[in-house]
């Protein structure tokens, strides 16, 4: 019967061409959407690598002040640490978690070159951000006395640079020495892909890296924030101070990821509803046009259910034709590693899209095919 249906569909390919294009286009749009969703869900399921609750980022801007900046930053850091509400404080570069700023650089080891995110922090950063160190240890200020600058890398960078090799104590890019490895560090939030990252010890004498990360005790409120900001601005007159609560920054970052996905989802949803309604209409019309054939098939031995199954099978065969053409396009993404996204994401998206398309066409075919099953053969044959 399937061969018979293939022949029937194939011989009507011109009449079905628009329907084929419609299903094919829906598949591609759905593939795009599901790739985006699978990509984000997969990222979301990977650990963030740090704790953002009760963590605040204090941006210090020296403005016109150009004297003894490093000492002043250090002074502010010590003052902030002294507050009983502050559990831990740390100094770092301005690409703090959930910020819009980023910094990256190439890392070389044994002829391998990997682009990694760079974070310049002090020795207290792991404690402040609650970053578990899975191998070795977080660097200390005392480590800076050596020839090489101490660095901590994440597991992703370790895998790309060293593979199965032990990374601890290794020299990379001829200037860094690896002291520890952390698991993941997704500074742009849960939806960020786990990228290679490197933490470098801050130079205490440098006037740069003027951002303070602090972890406050749970329940610390805006009153303390105002008090702290006032104290800082008194200490470093003319500087501007801005405090970001990481919970708020996280929401903003998430919105940047989720809003386009939701817009795409809504647009695709409308498109799929239109396609479904179109299919439904076409099938209804097709059944009205083929009443004679339905009557004939009933006369020749088809049951009502058989007729219903035939119409559902026909639309599934048609969807298969459209999906095969769609797969030719979709398979190029994993094969050509488009956007440097893991092939598994594309393959999962393809599988989901195929299932959804088959689901939609089946749903659209159920009602018209039931109508077809109820057609009285004697009446249908007489109409013809």
């Amino acid at each position: 019967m399937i061969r018979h249906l293939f022949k029937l569909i194939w011989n009507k390919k011109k009449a079905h061409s628009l329907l084929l294009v419609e299903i094919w286009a829906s598949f591609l749009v759905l593939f795009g959407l599901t790739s985006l969703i699978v990509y984000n869900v997969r990222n979301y399921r990977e650990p963030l690598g740090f704790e953002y609750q009760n963590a605040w980022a204090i941006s210090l801007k020296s403005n016109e002040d150009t004297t003894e900046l490093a000492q002043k930053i250090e002074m502010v850091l010590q003052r902030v640490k002294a507050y009983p509400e502050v559990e831990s404080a740390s100094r770092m570069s301005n690409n703090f978690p959930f910020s819009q700023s980023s910094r990256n650089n190439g890392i070389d080891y044994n002829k391998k070159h990997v682009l990694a995110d760079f974070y310049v922090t002090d020795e207290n950063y792991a404690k402040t951000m609650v970053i578990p160190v899975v191998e070795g240890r977080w660097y200390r200020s005392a480590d800076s006395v050596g020839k090489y600058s101490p660095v901590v890398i994440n597991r992703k960078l370790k895998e790309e640079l060293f593979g199965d090799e032990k990374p601890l104590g290794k020299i990379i890019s001829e200037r860094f020495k690896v002291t520890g490895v952390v698991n993941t560090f997704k500074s742009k939030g849960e939806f960020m892909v786990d990228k290679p990252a490197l933490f470098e010890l801050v130079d205490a004498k440098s006037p740069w890296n003027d951002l303070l990360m602090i972890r406050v005790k749970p329940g610390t409120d805006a009153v303390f924030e105002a008090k702290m900001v006032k104290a800082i601005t008194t200490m470093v007159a003319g500087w501007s101070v801005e405090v970001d609560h990481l919970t708020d920054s996280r929401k903003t970052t998430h919105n940047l990821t989720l809003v386009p996905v939701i817009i795409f989802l809504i647009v695709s949803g409308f498109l799929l509803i239109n396609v479904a309604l179109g299919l439904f209409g076409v099938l209804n019309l097709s059944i009205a046009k083929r009443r004679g054939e339905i009557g004939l098939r009933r006369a020749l031995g088809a049951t009502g259910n058989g007729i219903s199954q035939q119409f559902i099978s026909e639309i599934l065969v048609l969807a298969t034709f459209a999906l095969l053409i769609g797969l030719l396009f979709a398979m190029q993404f994993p094969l050509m590693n488009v956007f440097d996204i893991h092939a598994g994401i594309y393959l999962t998206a393809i599988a989901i899209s195929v299932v959804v398309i088959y689901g939609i066409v089946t749903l659209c075919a159920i009602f018209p095919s039931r109508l077809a099953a109820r057609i009285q053969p004697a009446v249908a044959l007489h109409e013809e």
Partner: protein
Amino acid sequence: MINLTNIEKVYRTSSIETLALNNINLNIRKGEFVSIMGPSGCGKSTLLNIMGLLDEPSKGTVELDGQRVSTYRDKELARLRNEKIGFIFQSFHLINDLSVVDNVEIPLLYRSTNGKPRQTYAKEALEKVGLSNRIKHFPKQLSGGQKQRVAIARAIVGKPEIILADEPTGNLDSAMGNEIMNILQGLNDEGATIIMVTHDENMAKRTHRLIRLFDGTQVQ
């Protein structure tokens, strides 16, 4: 073979009730060639549909090979239609998107005959009606007479015992009509029971028995 007792068929709409058949009693014996005649709207096709298990009577019983079919479910009726009955229609009812051989194969699809034997049987049936040179053609490429011969091949491919023909020569000229009639007579000679609705007295005269209907009632 086919036994109809007190058959009555009423078509009802919300406002009109039409009596299509009234107290029809009929016994068709195995191997008979019976023609049914009557003016348009007298119930000939309705009677044929009831005998072909395509329609149910409002009253009365239909027996096929001694078995009452009124209790049969859709699946069993479909199986009986497929195995015991072959249909030929005035307007041929060929599927234009399928080739001649694919059209003829359709009854065998519903008894799950495999591809190879299915094609062999279809070709044999087409050879019987003299169309073995047209198997790859599509219905639109055939003349009326050729289309009807394809329809006959489709009706006989499953080797049914009964052939129901609803005005098989109605759309054909007299030469083509005679040709089709010759084929039907040949099938009858081979043992098939044929019941044919016709308007043509000459065609009816070539059958064993003539049944006349008028306003849903059997008058002869």
